[in-house]
């Protein structure tokens, strides 16, 4: 595998043009995701810490967050991979704690079956249009697989262990 994602594979099999478009769209998608998530992160931050702000000043907060992001990446240097591995385990622990801690109050009959009866259709309560609208969420599942090409450069230099942190 080549660090950089799926474009190398696409380039050899589908030709240089489609290969480039894969690399272009992959980078573009991640740049857009980061900018949108940073906006949400800033809003959550100001909400959580009761920070008074003027909506016109939001761009300054975005700049600060971006600067922090880049500096943190550069500062972590070769420990980026290990940091992501560690945080990956921490993030994985969150749903496990959630499931273990709330298991006693789960009630499938009340919150899923009975709620579904409120709708006319059981299988597609929001209709075909609603189903198609929510379907893209399932594409996020593939994201983890797509990420594997990106970590190989780090593992190659660090050690042969810990191939996956993503």
């Amino acid at each position, binding site marked *: 595998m080549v660090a950089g994602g799926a474009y190398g594979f696409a380039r050899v099999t589908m030709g240089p043009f489609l290969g480039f478009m894969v690399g272009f769209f992959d980078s*573009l998608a991640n740049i857009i995701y980061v900018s949108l998530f940073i906006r949400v992160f800033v809003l959550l931050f100001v909400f959580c810490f009761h920070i008074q702000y003027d909506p016109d000043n939001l761009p300054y907060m975005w700049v600060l967050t971006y600067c922090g*992001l880049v500096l943190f990446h550069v500062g972590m240097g070769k420990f980026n991979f290990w940091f992501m591995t560690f945080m990956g385990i921490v993030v994985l622990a969150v749903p496990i704690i959630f499931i273990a*801690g*709330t298991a006693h109050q789960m009630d499938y009959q009340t919150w899923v079956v009975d709620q579904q009866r409120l709708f006319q259709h059981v299988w597609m309560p929001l209709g075909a249009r609603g189903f198609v609208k929510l379907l893209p969420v399932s594409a996020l599942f593939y994201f983890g697989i797509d990420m594997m090409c*990106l970590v190989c450069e780090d593992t190659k230099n660090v050690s042969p262990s810990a191939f996956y942190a993503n």
Partner: protein
Amino acid sequence: MLIVIVVQATSTVPRALMMVFITMFVMAIAVLFAVCSQWPGAFISAYVAFPFTFGFVDMFHTSFQRVTISLLPCFGMEIYTLAYAFGRQMCALSRSKLLPPVFSYTSWGNVPYMSLIIGSVLGLLHLVVLQYIDKDQFEVRIGLMYTVAQLCSIFVYVISMLSFIVFRYKYGVLTRPFNVGILGVPLALIGVGIFIVIGVGLCFFANDNHFHLKAYAILASFGIAYYFAYARSRQSFSQEEQSILFAVYVIKGK
């Protein structure tokens, strides 16, 4: 999110991939059932940013705010990983001479800092432009830009799966370090079908406003124009592609 000791990469990587996939699948199903089976129920939980919040508030007898603060690092980590992804991708594109050499500048620890900086500036510009074009439409357009990013990802996934199928037939004689199995091609075809349905849904059902289609068309046109104006005449195989991948084989084969 899984650590696997890779002694012999050729045999352990497929196993690691399966373990990662199974972990993701089991966790996703478990979380889905856990979140849907408690207050406030499946339909409200589907529309909140952090569905775990309700459960954690009950569990720790604390406020929504404190729970959100404790979940912020997880959200920050998602941003961090996505930034890692675009930095690495643009650096790799630059090494193949598909982007200018400045994108492949790296700092201590092989961090592609210039790709990170340029990508961050582009992302920031995108937000600022959306903010100042029309403030009333900002929230709507932000949502539509998310759709644009999803369309970009769908394109990548479809081409990746098609590449896999083409590779199987076009370079079938190539010696592989591990077998894919007979289900590889049919599953890839199913994947292509699913992603095409998702793509069509995003294009025509996601929103009545077609701003996202126009934005996608503009970005795609820019990519195509850039490729033919700059990248096509300069591109080459990077060192990694020549040594790690199969480029040498293909070049020699041709």
